[in-house]
């Protein structure tokens, strides 16, 4: 036994070295696979927006008489963008979107912060049931509701009005925002409100002075979510709005910039990019909050 183990080092060592070598090789291969996958994925993911950008910089002439690859632009021009920006109708879409989104974000945040505070901390008869209800409504898609809502909004005389959209958009935003705010509020230690209670805070002060500041990241995430969702909403405006002057951007670009058979592709792509710009900017600056909000729904519930 003794002699065997004494003799073995020289025999074992090359084997160990080979093992280590293959481990390193394995790691390198894994890394190469990872980068190759990511590069391919990034190309696929970014190709459509890139091509939209390229197209938006082209003149109509260049688009309709392609020579060589369509993936590059030969005579870049901002003409398409200028045309849109100087078009009062397009500017109208933009303002409508801003008005709707601002109103919906405010309404949503007030409703969901108040409700989440009440559901996470104060409790009342039936509050458990309501929390489940919030979760269930979050699962109901807008495409199930738009026909009855079409009737209801029509009955209120709000078809073809941005206020009709402000009325119904909370169905898209409130459940999820409430849900993630409940999660954020519930993670605040109980002693903190007890301390505030002893310090003499009433419920409103507890909410505004303690809970909102402490759960600020959650509030930002929920606000971003409400913003993105109301900016991108498509089903409701398509169903409820047919007058161009009340249209928000999404449906405006899709329905009004496509006219006749010869499409102004350059302008269409420029319009789509301009319309997509606000959410992308928000995303670029607040990516961490954006992702926190996205994943909070699943990890907190």
């Amino acid at each position, binding site marked *: 036994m003794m002699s065997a183990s004494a003799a073995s080092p020289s025999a074992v060592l090359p084997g160990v070295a080979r093992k280590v070598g293959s481990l390193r090789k394995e790691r390198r291969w894994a890394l190469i696979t990872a980068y190759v996958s990511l590069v391919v994925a990034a190309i696929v993911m970014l190709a459509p927006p890139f091509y939209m950008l390229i197209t938006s910089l082209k003149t109509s002439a260049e688009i309709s008489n392609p020579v060589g690859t369509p993936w590059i632009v030969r005579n870049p021009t901002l003409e398409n963008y200028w045309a849109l920006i100087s078009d009062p109708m397009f500017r109208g879409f933009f303002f409508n979107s801003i008005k709707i989104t601002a109103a919906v974000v405010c309404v949503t945040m007030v409703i969901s912060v108040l409700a989440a505070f009440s559901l996470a901390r104060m409790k009342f008869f039936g509050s458990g049931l309501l929390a489940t209800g919030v979760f269930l409504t979050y699962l109901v898609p807008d495409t199930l509701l738009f026909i009855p809502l079409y009737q209801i909004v029509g009955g209120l005389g709000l078809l073809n009005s941005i206020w009709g959209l402000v009325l119904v958009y909370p169905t898209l935003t409130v459940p999820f925002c409430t849900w993630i705010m409940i999660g954020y509020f519930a993670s605040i*230690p109980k*002693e*903190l409100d*007890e*301390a*505030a*209670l*002893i*310090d*003499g*805070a*009433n419920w409103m*002060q507890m909410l505004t*002075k*303690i809970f909102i*500041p*402490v759960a*600020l990241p959650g509030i930002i995430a929920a606000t971003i979510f409400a913003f993105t969702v109301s900016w991108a909403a498509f089903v409701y405006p398509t169903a409820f709005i047919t007058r161009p002057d009340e249209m928000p951007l999404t449906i405006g670009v899709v329905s009004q910039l496509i006219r006749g058979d010869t499409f102004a592709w350059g302008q269409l792509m420029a319009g789509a990019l301009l319309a997509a710009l606000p959410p992308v900017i928000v995303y670029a600056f607040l990516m961490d909050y954006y992702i926190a909000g996205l994943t909070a729904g699943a990890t907190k519930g």
Partner: protein
Amino acid sequence: MAQVSIRKVVKEYEGGVQAVKGINLEIDDHEFVVLVGPSGCGKSTTLRMIAGLEEISGGEIAIGGGVVNDIPPRDRDIAMVFQNYALYPHMSVYDNMAFGLMLRKFPKEEIRRRVENAAQILDIKVLLDRKPKALSGGQRQRVAMGRAIVRDPKVFLFDEPLSNLDAKLRVQMRTEIKKVHQTVKTTTVYVTHDQVEAMTLADRVVVMNHGVIEQVGPPQELYHHPQTKFVAGFIGSPAMNFIPTRLVETSGALNLELSSDIVLPIPEDRIGRYKAHAGRELLFGIRPEHMTEVRPNDHRPGLASFHATPEVVEPMGAETLLHFWKDGHEICAKFDPGVAVEPGVRTPMAIDMNRMHLIDPKTDRVL
């Protein structure tokens, strides 16, 4: 400043758990009272009922003479320090301390004066602009206390304020709390499960067990004159030894028969107290520190001696602990570190019978 009266207070949680089963306690003005007991005995529940954070199921609590059962916490004029400090993470130290005063609409000047005064007492003046995240555990602890001090309330409530600190800091903060109390003299109710903390801080210690108060008294009294087996075993470290024994009367003298070979004489001044129980099976209680090596020149009355074979010897530095087993009971003795003891070697020991206790195993009361 105020006294606190707890009268027949009961707490029953939803689901029928009785956490507190009808306790009575009078706390004097300026007094420092420590509630101590094992985990789950209802200390925190009692404290939270005083604070108004839990509703009182039965009985009444009065602060400064007025019954507060129906008063919400903010109007009880109490301040509380929590185990995890509960500092507002988004506020600076200054704002944390000022928050309660601000909500009570104190003038700015007064707030500043009080916060600075408290910061002075606690030596945290340089920290006033920091956020809690940038503080160490001990500093957070001080801020939490500062938040209580600035309010100048009728009563301070502490719920295990030191249990999140490391051992060394705990000792340091313990002294600090004592010092603060001597400065501001506010009536204090302090909850802990650490009996050393209880003994060092308290004017009076309240020992709780299973929702009832076992005994109330100054630390020395609890140590020397425990009234129940629970208190006798809970106070003191290492814990008191309990050995089954029989009390035998032989020609006017009383003896404890621990076994056929160990018979210990009861001191004369105790004979009257125990006489009525002669012939019964009882529990003999003796603290390790009263079971020592035999000192040659020690001739105090009431010293008894016997031999035992320690199986484990633990040198602790300031003392040496000997463990031996007798009829399945572990017994611990505390020796001077200068005495050489070997495990497995039969060793003579002295018992100070003046410090003994006899416990009725039926009622668990100390006789």
